[in-house]
């Protein structure tokens, strides 16, 4: 009665095992694209570079989990699979191993930065260990793991093993040397992030001295959209113009741009119908945002760059400008040796040059009294915040760690006088991982948007 049953029930539609390059194409494209899309839509709002004239709830701090939890835990299994494949005897490849470790570190660092305690040590073990309700680990413990992964990635990528055939890597096409620079750039980012809690100077110094980090725009971890289909186009270019038009220049950013006489204003934004630059206050409610919009016609984002072009804007994980500002701050604080001003200038130069500003203009820009370096962390971090335009939530992380540049809630905030510092856990965790969720909430002191994490409560500075 049951002849051929096993054969009939073997799935002809999909494979049970795959090669690393197919998964790599998925993770490199999805992570880069999502991080930039998040930065564009919400990261720019929380740092007040942009304000919304419609559906402005996010900047009123009417928050939930914002979907990032599902994104990162959704893509981590692919990263885990690449790691397994890269460590199997038959398919061993230290470059894939280094790439997977780098991306795993990036995902978990983002998760703990955004949510605080999250499942880490027991995460992703449904198939291997049958764990479906993993415990939440502390941010400190997760950071230990993140930094270890990045150090291991550095070591694996140093072996410089090549990948034969299609790499699947939309960022560096499988170049181990450049991946190594990305891994070390991320180490610098995360070491500085925990520097209020820990003395990180030895490690940061070692990485800086070795020089294997992103140090030029040519090494930026960027994705250039080919624009052949909706999938591989700049995501905003495939939406409705109404959705694009919900975003405007924020008056906080306009103040920065005016102070610096900044050419990026004209690159990222359009003048309004009267030919003026008008910024919109952050945190207005729907009625007030529309009323302001109607009365003042705030500047919208550059429509040619951010809407009509499928390939004009890129997606990225980390760029040279951010690395230079990290080093500038570390030097300024004495964490590493070196000239803070030189790093600062390199950071400004890298950002402007990335956006197509010519060298002469940049030199003139840097020469302005309002821009030229004076040792002020506020100036440094304001420039860094602008350079972090579209870079996920990194500007907000800087603000949470340093309080700079100072940000005030808008007039229609729903969060009192507080500026929020984390996302809420997704409601699915309440029902699917109840006990661990509740333990995490009590360990952190509540599941609300004002509970600070481990790295921002350090006292070293």
């Amino acid at each position: 009665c049951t002849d051929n049953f096993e054969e009939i029930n073997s799935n002809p539609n999909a494979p049970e095992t795959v090669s690393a390059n197919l998964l790599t194409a998925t993770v490199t494209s999805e992570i880069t694209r999502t991080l930039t899309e998040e930065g564009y839509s919400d990261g720019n709002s929380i740092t007040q570079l942009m304000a919304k004239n419609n559906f402005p709830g996010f900047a009123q701090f009417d928050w939930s989990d914002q979907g990032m939890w599902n994104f990162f835990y959704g893509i981590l299994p692919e990263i885990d699979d690449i790691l397994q494949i890269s460590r199997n005897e038959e398919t061993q490849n230290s470059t894939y191993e280094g790439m997977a470790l780098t991306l795993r570190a990036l995902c978990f660092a983002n998760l703990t930065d955004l949510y605080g305690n999250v499942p880490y040590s027991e995460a992703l073990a449904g198939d291997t260990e049958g764990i479906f309700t993993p415990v939440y680990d502390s941010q400190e413990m997760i950071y230990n793991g993140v930094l270890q992964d990045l150090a291991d990635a550095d070591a694996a990528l140093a072996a410089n093993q090549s990948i034969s055939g299609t790499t699947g890597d939309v960022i560096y096409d499988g170049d181990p040397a450049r991946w190594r620079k990305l891994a070390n750039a991320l180490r610098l980012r995360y070491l500085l992030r925990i520097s209020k809690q820990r003395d990180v100077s030895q490690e940061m110094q070692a990485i800086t001295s070795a020089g294997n980090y992103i140090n030029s725009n040519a090494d930026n971890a960027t994705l250039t959209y080919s624009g052949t289909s909706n999938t591989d186009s700049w995501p905003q270019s495939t939406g409705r113009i109404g959705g694009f038009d919900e975003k405007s220049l924020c008056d906080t950013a306009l103040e920065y741009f005016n102070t610096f006489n900044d050419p990026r204003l004209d690159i990222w934004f359009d003048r309004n119908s009267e030919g003026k630059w008008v910024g919109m206050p952050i945190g207005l409610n729907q009625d007030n945002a529309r009323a302001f919009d109607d009365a003042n016609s705030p500047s919208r984002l550059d429509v040619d760059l951010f809407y009509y072009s499928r390939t004009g804007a890129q997606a990225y994980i980390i760029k040279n400008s951010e690395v230079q500002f990290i080093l500038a701050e570390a030097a300024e604080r004495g964490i590493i040796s070196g000239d803070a001003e030189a790093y600062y200038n390199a950071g400004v130069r890298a950002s402007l040059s990335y956006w197509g500003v010519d060298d002469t203009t940049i030199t003139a820009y840097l020469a302005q009294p309002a821009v030229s370096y004076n040792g002020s962390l506020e100036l440094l971090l304001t420039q860094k915040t602008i350079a972090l335009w579209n870079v996920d939530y990194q500007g907000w992380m800087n603000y949470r760690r340093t309080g700079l540049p100072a940000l005030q809630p808008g007039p229609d905030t729903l969060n009192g006088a507080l500026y929020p510092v984390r996302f809420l856990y997704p409601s699915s965790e309440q029902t699917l991982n109840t006990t661990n969720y509740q333990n995490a909430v009590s360990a952190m002191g509540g599941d609300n948007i004002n509970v600070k994490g481990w790295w921002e409560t350090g006292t070293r500075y």
Partner: protein
Amino acid sequence: QDRTLQGTVTDTNGMPLPGASIVVKNTTIGVVTDFDGNFTINIPENENVIEATFMGFKSQELNVTGKTTLTIVLEEDAQGLDEVVVTALGIKRETKKLSYAVQKVDGNELAEAKETNVINSLSGKMAGVRVTGGNSGVGSSSQIIIRGENSLNPSPNANSPLFVVDGIPINNNINNAGGDGNMGVDFGNGAMDINPDDVAEMTVLKGPNATALYGSRGANGVVLITTKSGKGTKGIGVSINHNTTFETLLTLPKYQNEYGQGSNGQFAFNDGGQNRSVTGGINDHVDESWGPALNGQLIPQHDSPTTSGFRAGDVNLRPRNADGTFADDIIATPFIAHPDNIRDFFETGFTMSNNVALTGANKDGNFRVSFTDLSSESIVPNSNFKRRTYAINGAYNLTDWLKVSASMNYINSNSDNRPNNSYGTENVMYLWIWFGRHIDMNGLRDYWQPGLENSQQFNYNYNYHDNPFFTVYENTNSFNRDRVITNMRADLQLADGLDLMFRTGLDYSNELDMRKRAYSTQRFPKGQYREDYTYAQEQNTDFLLSYTKTLTEYFDLGVSVGANHRVAKNRYQRMSANSLSIPAIYNFGNAAEPLTTSDYDSEFRVNSAYAFGNIAYKNYLFLDLTARNDWSSTLPEDNNSYFYPSAGISAILSDMFEMPEAISFAKLRAGYAVVGNDTNPYNLAATYGFGDTFNGFSRVYSPSELKNSDLKPEKTNSIELGADVRFFGNRLGLDIAVYQSTTKNQIISLPVSNTSGFSSRVINAGEVQNRGLEITLNATPLRTDDFRWNSSVNFTMNRGKVVDLTEGLDFYTIKNNYLTVGAAIGERIGDLYGTGFQKVNDPDSEYNGQWIINPDSGLPIVDNELRKLGNYSPDFMVGFQNSFQYKNFNFSFLFDWRQGGEFHSRTVAIGGTTGMLDFTVPGRETGIVAAGVIANADGSYTQNTQNVSASNYYSHVYNRSNEESSMFDATYVKLREVKLGYNLPKKWFDTVPFSSATISLVGRNLALWTENDHVDPESISFSGGSIVPGVEDMALPSTRSFGLNVNLEF
């Protein structure tokens, strides 16, 4: 040696009784009388007793030894006791002998008050049966649930009964594919292809006790459809049926008529949001209705004229200055309400169905051919549904001992356009909830900007929405489905009482769906062309060997053994060009980007062996036993064989004991059954999924579902008790059934925390218990020679309860769409969870139960913790039918009452935030103080006094992420059906060729009473390709229909 017997059946007045059944006792041989009450039947050798039965008449057994012709006179009886029904495997049995509840609907009833989707005709007519209609007009899917949901699996197909046509199981899957940027389209459910004109009878087997022989697939009940045959025709019979039905709106959301589009009371059109920073008007990019009062003041609008001669909304044509601003001026026009603008969009629906059937029979065989053409124009412009059915069947006695029969139904269903459903720009109901009350619908009918045909639509808004006429005329979703349902059967009489039946049947369907999207569509600025191809095939081959014998004077015995072999194959393919090089050329060669594709193949097999027996004692005590074993390819090798038995007993007490005179009949019945079930193919090992290519690289995704190589079959245990008692010479009848069924070891896709690396895993878990009570009451309150009033009430109550889930789990998310449909241990099936506002929870406080207001905003605070907001299952359902017959006239009406249950109306939620619905008018001029309290730091409360604008208030209170505000009681009463029929007197036909003519006026869904006056709580909601229970989401208005049915027999 067989012999032929001819006869006539009449009533006591000598009037012929058409449709009476004649059965040779102890055999399955039976015929039905023709229009003149005549019949011809073959009597096998050694059989001498025939039984004549007819609904409403007392049955008669006659010894026909030596007779070749006879007249049978049946005595009238208020209730047909000796009714014969079709049971599992197509076996005809007397109702009185059954140990379980069975109900049937006669084909005439279906043909007269015709529903295009035959499932809808069952609504309100049977206890235990819940029918929910789709919301895409004629041609929509309908869902049928019998005795509650047994499965925790949210798939609409998991709780569907099995449909069997002439012994062959057919597919009843719902096809509502979305994806690739498109929203869902309802292309119908499989059983919808059944043509009501060809149905002789529909029998519903309600629980595992009745369906145990169908095994795996019978756990949710079985709908047995017997198609018409030529049996009993005298010579040649011709019948013609014509049906015309008009449809009009039954419901429509109640829109306000005081304020137009805009924000903060301001609005003026300039470019409709196309290029806001250059040519934007005043809030003309805002697609909500918080604009100026509609007082007739002059305001530039999209259909206002301009000094350049264009409509203001012809933004791509109007002259421009060098800086991009318009060089012309809009001549403002009065800003007034168009109260009927949305009603104006809809048209009167029109459905016409014509059927011609030819039948013939002689002593050796019979045939029937039938052709039906159905054509329907929807209430949505340019949307339709067409179906042609070709049916042929025949039977022939090749020899005394061999009879063959075959039937073939070819059905072609198609549509030039089916409306989109669910939430988004492709659904016109989505547009209406964001529309403007100042818009004259007629001004949108010319939907191209002149000279830009095929490339640029004309609209009142350009940043979010599509012109509704553009949507329905240009962005079409067509389909064509070819379906063949066929079977062949041979009956052999091997020896006296020993029969062998062999049958094979096929259900095959092939469907092509085509979506076209024009240039300038919001979702596809450069158009789209997409094809979805679905192929389904199921083949069933079975045999049945039966033996019947009268053992002694008192005992009758019947034993059968059989086997079934089932092979099912499915294929799905999708291709889409998501932008086109040249407008309006819908061909993949015209793709402006690489095609996206998806395809899926599946196959599975189930082999089964079964046996059943029945013993009758003195024709008043009956015992039924069944046993079945299945082998399914979908289960692991060690667990792929599973066995399940059933037993039932029925006792006719009124024949066993002396009863009081008032009781004319009394029967008790009891049964116990077990049914096993398998799973879908490929549930044992996880696989990687393909993604779209990115920058030229192929991509795959890791499995999101952890499969299970140790699955066990599901098991349902069911016990059913019933009584059938009739009084006063059968003028009053009462049938009661109570049951409990428990489904264990359910194979479910359990959602797990995605931190585990998977979002779900396949496990055996869960125990769902359904308990229910079904009561059917039939009465003939009045009966004279000329007049008869029959009345029937059916009552259904079912409670589904989650008894257990799995270790460590006390809550299971069945479905997550806006609301969470959750299963919690000890709670009811169908519980709905969502978010609501924080409220004072302190019985001692005078403010207990009031909203807690955020002092920053003056608005209630959303509490993100999930709470139970209701349950979508009804508390009970009642169908109430009355029919009156006076001479040649008959009149009947049916009320359908569903009591209890809740649903979430997304139309109300969104219509509250957009200011479109009537309840958003109060407070527009004055602002609103939310009724609630401010929580003070010391734990006390202060009454809120903060005044907020109406738009802030309503858009917050009806916020779509807060479902509590738009929950409604799902109770409704519907006047489901009204019929007035007239049989033209026979004497009129002396000079015309036809022998009978019936004209009926029919109306369906004529009136609705319910709490929510914006939508019909009955509308099924679709999302992501499947039904979302408990949610109404931008449903098309439900409709009432009026029609005329003419039936002629020659």
